[in-house]
C-alpha cells in the first residue's frame, strides 16, 4: 500500500498539486489519469521522493517517509522500481548492463548470479537476443520493456511507471499494459501507473485516480468509470468520437 496524505506542491509560487489524499492498493494496478500538465508526473515523483513536497507526507505500508533517516530511505529505495517516461536507460550501458545495474549496487551476488537474474527479468518481459545492444539500437517498445526489467530486478514491493505506453503503437501499448498487470499480480506489488491512455484505463484500471489541475477529482475503477457523473472526468474520457459512440451503446 502506498498512501499520500495532504500533499501540496508548488513551483515558484505556482501550485501544481493541491491536497492530494489517496491510497494505492497492494496487488493492484493503480492508475493516475489526467490530461497532460495535470500533475501526474509531479505526483508520481513526489511519492518516490524525487520531487520535494511542500506539505503532507507519504506512507509506504506502515512507513511514514517523514520519519525515516537517510539509511532507511536508501533501503526503502531498493524496494521501489521506477519506469520513467522515456525509459531512462543508461545510454553508455548495454541492455543487460542496464538491468544488472541495481544488482551491482545493492546485491552481494556473484557476477554469474547477477547475469542469471538479469536474464531472467529480460526473459520475463519477453526480450531475448538483445542483451548486448545499446539503448540507441532498440525500439521504443523494447526500451520500455528493458526499463521494466530493470525496475523489477531487485524484486521491488512498489512499482511506479510514468506513462509506460506513451509513444507506442496500440499493439505494443497493450503488450506493455498486460505485462505490468501480470507482474503486479505475480509478485504482489503495489503498482502505480500514470497514463492518459483510455485503453489502459479500461484494460488494467483496478483502481483509478483522476486528477485535473493538481486536484483529485474522482476515484474509482474500470468498472464504474464509464458511469461516473464527474463532468471533468467525462470530458476527459469521452473526448474522442470513438469513446463517445461507445458510451452511447453502454
Amino acid at each position, binding site marked *: 500500500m502506498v498512501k499520500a496524505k495532504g500533499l501540496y506542491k508548488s513551483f515558484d509560487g505556482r501550485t501544481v498539486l493541491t491536497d492530494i489524499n489517496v491510497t494505492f492498493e497492494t496487488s493492484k494496478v493503480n492508475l493516475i489519469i489526467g490530461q497532460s500538465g495535470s500533475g501526474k508526473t509531479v505526483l508520481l*515523483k513526489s511519492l*518516490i521522493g*524525487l520531487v520535494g513536497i511542500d506539505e503532507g507526507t507519504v506512507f509506504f505500508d506502515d512507513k511514514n517517509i517523514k520519519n525515516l533517516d537517510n539509511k532507511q*530511505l*536508501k*533501503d*526503502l*529505495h*531498493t524496494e*521501489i522500481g*521506477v519506469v*520513467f*517516461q*522515456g525509459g*531512462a*536507460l*543508461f*545510454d553508455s550501458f548495454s541492455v543487460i548492463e542496464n538491468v544488472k*545495474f*541495481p544488482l*551491482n*549496487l*545493492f546485491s552481494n551476488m556473484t557476477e554469474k548470479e547477477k547475469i542469471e537474474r538479469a536474464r531472467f527479468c529480460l526473459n520475463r518481459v519477453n526480450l531475448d537476443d538483445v542483451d548486448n545492444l545499446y539503448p540507441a539500437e532498440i525500439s521504443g517498445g523494447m526500451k520500455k520493456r528493458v526499463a521494466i526489467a530493470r525496475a523489477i530486478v531487485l524484486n521491488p514491493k512498489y512499482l511506479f511507471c510514468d506513462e509506460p505506453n506513451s509513444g507506442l503503437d496500440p499493439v505494443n501499448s497493450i503488450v506493455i499494459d498486460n505485462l505490468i498487470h501480470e507482474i503486479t499480480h505475480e509478485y504482489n506489488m503495489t503498482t502505480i501507473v500514470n497514463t492518459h491512455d483510455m485503453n489502459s484505463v479500461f484494460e488494467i484500471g483496478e483502481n483509478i485516480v483522476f486528477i485535473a489541475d493538481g486536484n483529485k477529482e474522482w476515484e474509482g475503477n474500470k468498472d464504474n468509470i464509464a458511469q461516473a457523473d464527474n463532468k471533468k472526468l467525462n470530458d476527459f474520457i469521452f473526448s474522442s468520437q470513438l469513446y463517445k459512440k461507445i458510451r452511447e451503446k453502454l
Partner: protein
Amino acid sequence: MKFLILVGNYVIFIKKVFSKQEKNRIFFKNIGSELEKLGFNSIPLVLIISFFIGAVLTLQTAYNMASPLLPRYLIGYLTRETLLLEFSSTIVSVILAGKIGSNVASEIGTMKITEQIEALEAMGVNSISYLVAPKIISAMLINPILYIFSVFIGIIGGLLTGILSGVVNFEDFIQGLHFSFNSYYVVYSIIKSFVFAFIFTSIPAFYGYNVQGGALEVGKASTRAVVDSSIAILIANLILTQILL
C-alpha cells in the same frame, strides 16, 4: 547577485560530489572508464598541438633574433620556458576545457533531461558523486601526465624543426634546454594542471547537472561550460602565479 548565487550553488554541488560514495569497487571501475574516456582519448590531440606549437615557438624565436650577438642557445631556452611554464599547463588545459568540458556538460546534461539522473536517484544512488567524482578525479590524475607529454613533444617539435630548417643546431638547442633550469617551475606547472583539471571537469558537470528542458538547453549549457571554465582557468592561472612564483 546572480553570480553569487551561481557560485554558492557551485560550492554546494562540489560538496555533494565529495560526499559519501557508492561501493568502492564501482567507484574504481568508474574511474577506470573515465580515465580512458577523458584522459587517454585526449592524448593524440595534446601531442599534435604540442608538437606544432613547439615547432612554431622555435621558428618564431629564431626569426625574431636578428642580432648576431644573441646566443643561439636562447632558442632552445625560450622554447622550453614557454612550454614548461604556460603552454603545456595553461593553454593545453584551455584546449582540454573545450574537448573534455563540452563532453562532460553534454553527457551529464543529456542524462538530466532524459531522466537518467532521476533513475539513479530513484535507486538510492547519490547521482552527483556517482557521476561527477570519477570524472574530476580521473582528469586530475591524467592532466599532469598530459602536461609532461606536452612539454616533451613540444621540445621534440622545436628541436626537429629547428635543425631541419637550419635555424639552430643540435648542441645549441640542447644547451638552451639546460640553461638556467629551475625544477620548481615544473612543480608549479603540475600544481596548476591539477587545479585546471578540477576546473574543466567540475564546472561543466555543474552546468550539465542544472540543465532543464531539452536538447537545445544541453547545447547551451555545453557552450557556457566551455566558455566559463576557460575563463576560470585563466583567472586561476593568474592567482596561482601570484601565489606560487
